[in-house]
């Protein structure tokens, strides 16, 4: 029998010079590559499984505070710097790359209620229970110098929140009323009141920089324009909102963290119904912060978890928790869209990855390609039951798991009841109220 040997023309596969890329001949004829769907499905399934395998979001815990962490502030110019204020009036400055505290100062007596870094990054403001607003230098004092604030303003009432203007030397505080301060003056240049209530937080709009929003204790969210003498509008909800955050990329969207376990994203122009209701927490939501890309936000809750939501998704895409983390009071998304920081009751600040399975550091081009391809595969097959099951599975602490179940049952029961009422009453008398409309009591002009 004759033995045949493959013979090919070397010109077809030998490079002309060694600097050329190796020629890899490919035939894209679909008949040569059958079963593309099933092959890609397998790849997608594997990618999803691997994602869950590599999902290790917790990076570090920064300990050092001697009381619960009440507020945090991102540095506006440096990614590696974080400021945190605790319930005993202490402010700590952290170096995130080294996971260590670089500076500690006793800022207030009692709680540090609010903290914000000036837009230039050279100083920061704190407000506390001792009715003072203090401005501090970002640099540590030199040897022998006392740790003293640059400027102290004595207020008449307790301040509960603080935010700084994006570009000008103006900041806003809230307490019994919302005050706008000029940095150079010791009295507010403008104060807004609307009825008798106390405010829990105030935030400047980072895009349309003259606008503000605040959460009041009468379950309302109030909008202001810094240039006007009166507030703009307010919406009263069924329960109180704790904090709110403006979307840094979408000027008219903001999200508020509510006591009724939900978060609500509003379009500023239309307060009648929230643009989106974000559900998943099983206890009051205490803080919310947007990612700098404006596509996602993170929320901290009293149920000892952090959740990450898409800005247009009703349910969270991720939940972070550890055994030791207690009620999470404040949360921040880092300015490079990579990390999440959470401060909780048990005196620790935790550093998390924003994408749990992401590989940190510089990636090789081929790694990048593989990641992109896997990402697209996961997106393509996300509706397949096995892929979805794996992708959506999260381990939850027992009590949260049971509480979620309980809440679901309650919700279903309520729905059923509504349905029955509607069924047994004259058609048209009981109208269907959507989930979005349910939570808004009224809009006050």
């Amino acid at each position: 029998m004759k033995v045949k040997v493959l013979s090919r023309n070397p010109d077809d596969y030998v490079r002309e010079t060694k600097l050329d890329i190796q020629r890899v001949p490919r035939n894209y004829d679909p008949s040569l590559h059958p079963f593309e769907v099933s092959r890609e499905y397998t790849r997608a399934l594997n990618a999803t499984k691997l994602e869950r395998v590599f999902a290790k979001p917790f990076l570090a815990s920064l300990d050092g505070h001697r009381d619960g962490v009440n507020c945090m502030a991102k540095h506006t110019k440096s990614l590696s710097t974080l400021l945190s204020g605790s319930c005993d009036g202490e402010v700590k400055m952290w170096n995130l790359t080294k996971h260590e505290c670089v500076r500690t100062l006793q800022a207030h007596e009692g709680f540090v209620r609010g903290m914000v870094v000036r837009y230039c990054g050279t100083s920061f403001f704190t407000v506390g229970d001792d009715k003072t607003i203090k401005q501090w230098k970002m640099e540590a004092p030199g040897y022998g110098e006392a740790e003293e604030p640059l400027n102290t303003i004595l207020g008449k009432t307790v301040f509960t929140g603080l935010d700084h203007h994006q570009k000008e030397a103006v900041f806003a505080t809230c307490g019994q009323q919302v005050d706008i301060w000029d940095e150079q003056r010791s009295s507010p240049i403008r104060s807004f009141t609307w009825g008798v209530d106390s405010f829990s937080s105030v935030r400047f709009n980072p895009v349309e920089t003259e606008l503000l929003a605040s959460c009041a204790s009468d379950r309302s969210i109030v909008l202001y324009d810094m240039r006007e003498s009166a507030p703009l509008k307010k919406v009263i909800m069924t329960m109180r909102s704790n904090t709110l955050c403006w979307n840094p990329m979408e000027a008219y969207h903001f999200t508020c963290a509510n006591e009724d376990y939900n978060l609500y994203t509003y379009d500023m122009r239309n307060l009648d119904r929230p643009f989106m209701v974000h559900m998943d927490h099983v206890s009051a939501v205490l803080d919310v912060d947007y990612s700098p890309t404006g596509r996602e936000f993170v929320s901290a809750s009293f149920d000892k978890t952090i959740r990450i939501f898409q800005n247009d998704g009703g349910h969270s895409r991720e939940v972070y928790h550890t055994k030791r983390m207690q009620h999470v009071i404040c949360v921040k998304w880092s300015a490079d869209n990579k990390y999440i920081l959470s401060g909780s009751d048990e005196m620790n600040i935790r550093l998390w990855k924003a994408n749990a399975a992401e590989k940190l550091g510089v990636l090789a081009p081929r790694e990048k390609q593989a990641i992109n391809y896997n990402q697209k595969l996961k997106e393509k097959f996300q509706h397949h039951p096995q892929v979805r099951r794996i992708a959506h599975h999260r381990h939850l602490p027992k009590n949260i798991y049971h509480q979620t179940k309980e809440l679901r049952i309650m919700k279903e029961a309520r729905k059923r009841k509504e349905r029955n009422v509607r069924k047994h009453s004259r058609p048209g008398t009981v109208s269907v109220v959507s989930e979005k409309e349910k939570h808004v009591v009224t809009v006050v002009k």
Partner: protein
Amino acid sequence: IHISFFVFDLKGADEDMSKEEDGEDERKRQHLLEAISALGGKRRKTLRERSEAAVQMSEFMVNAEDESERVELSDLIQIIEKTSTVPAKTKKQLNNLQRSKKTIECPLSKQESERIRRDVAFQKAATDISRWKSIISQNQRAEQLVFPLNQEPSGPKPMERVVTGWKAQTPLEQEIFALLSANKQPINDPILTPTEQASVRAMSLEDAKVHRAELQKARALQSYYEAQARREKKIKSKKFHKVQNKAKRKEFLKQFDEMVKTDPAAALEELNKMEVARMQERMSLKHQNSGKWAKSKAIMAKYNEGARKAMQQQLELNKHLSQKLVTSLNDDEEEEEVGDPELLPDFVNDAEQEMDSSNPWMRGRLSQDPTEEEENGDTVGLTTEQSGGVEYIAEEEEKVEETEDNVILREFDSRRKLRQALETDTAAEMSVDEEEEEESKAAAEDGDASDKEEEGLSEFTNLFHEIVEGQSRVEGAGDAGRADTSTQLEAGVIRIRTLRDVELLTQDSSATDKLHGEFPKPLSTENLPSTTQKAGKSRKRKKKIQLKEVLTKETKVMKVLLAPTVEASEELEEKLDQRGLIKEAFAGDDVISEFLKDKRKRENVGTSKILDLTLPGWGEWGGTGLKPSRSKRRRFRVKNAPPPPRKDQHLPSVIISEKRNSFVSLHQVNSLPFPFENHTQFESTICSPLGRTWNTEQTVKKITKPKVVTRLGTIIEPMAQEELVKDPHISSQDLQVVLQVLPWKRLTAK
């Protein structure tokens, strides 16, 4: 009715009063009014009269009880009408005011007014913020977003920007800057010094424009030319370049012709250049068939017509490029003058070329037999005469002088050749064109003649003619060379056969041993000197110096086998056998019948036969050894309805299982996911593959672009106002309108 009467009466009384002005009526009327007020039952509260000035004054204290005491507007403006300094217009306005009896509406309450103000402010803010709508929706729809949004372009920055943000710190830097500033050298704008700027300013605008236009045109032309050159350089076609080179050469020759007439010095230089180029070509290994490419081609030549051709062309090129340009006259003279007996004749060289060939028989002159040349063209190639037709002719002339033993050898050879011719029907075609050779020779001779005629000309013209002559010679040689190389390619096969022949020949030669004692000795050593010694001198004289003799490095001769023709038929047979072979391999197991059996079995599983539902013991005795009666059995027999036809009914070689596979259904989507409207849409997205197995590199890159890209370690700032300006959907006019309309709205509202 009562009251209306009174009112009527009252009006009448008024008229009366104005007419008659009677005091009694007045009194009556007063009474009447009192009576009417008494009818109401309420006692009107008498208000105190204001008597002293007070800081806090209530509007309710103003007394308006007595109509007679009330101050009318007419009372106040009476004075104005009298004074002449007040303009008529004002008087008219006052009169109009006096006539109108409307009351002014009272102002809104504080809550109401604040609410309106808030509403207006909100409307303003809402319209203001709606500017962002287009850019936001655009970002939401974007395939890919790269953050930070306002990225600075990477790469070198202009010097000015770098320098302005930097201060001299070290003493050295300060010194340098001091020097620069002292000499008025530019620091921030390094492009022009002050003097240069002044000179630029001095130039007139038109001049500058013309100059600029010229420069632009020149630049454009240059860039066009560059682009064209680049394009042409990129063309991979060898043929194209060959044609182009040829055209260039022709052009050059033409130019050269002219140059000879106009500028002989330059032409001489050119000539030298050409000579240098030729030398370089000789020195280099280019076109010597020693490169990688040539080797690969040599391998491929067996199977590929194109490769064979390419090799031939290469050889030809080599010959052409390394051809020395010499006048035949000069060379001849030199040759005769030298007359060196020790110098080896070119026949030796020819033989040496064949050193690597396996056949010692091929080294001799044997194959140069004239008869042979006529009969079998391919044998000419065995000696690989590359010097062209001129040599052949020269050799033909020498034949006479060859010795007897050579004649005998040739006899053997011819005998052998005959046998060979009989054996191989597929002899390579004769490609040496005798006529062409003749022509080329004639051309060369013509050149010689012309040379003689123009002996009086300058040295340069001499040289030039040499070139022309050389070229014509080369062309002639090229034809022959082509034939040569074609035969060379086939030579290997023939040689193998000739080796066999050698054995035959030795057997034959045993008979002729008596005649030639020295013959059995190795021919390679014998034949060479004998022939050269005899033929050497006389031939030398007639021939010009051939390139072959001078060249130190010889061209490698490629030995390439022809594609075997005999084996092809074998292959065919084997192809036919392939099926049989498989059959043979699987002779033991009969797959087809097994498959058919299997299929039948599956078909039968569905179609169950008659079902027997008889229960023993019902209606009769039951027990061991007792069978239910036949009538009963017949009664309870049930025939099953035939199952629906199978899908593989008409497919003889396929079994389709119609059972639902629960394992597969676990992985299937059972309801249409949200954004899709129908199942075909969803299916099409699932069916289009993403991977690089099915898509080209570019497509894969495009498809798998991530939605959000962020740069490592960069702060992403919130969207800035500049983004609005960048947005193409908002024109600057719209912006203006928005900004203008808003304050106006606010004013009107207030």
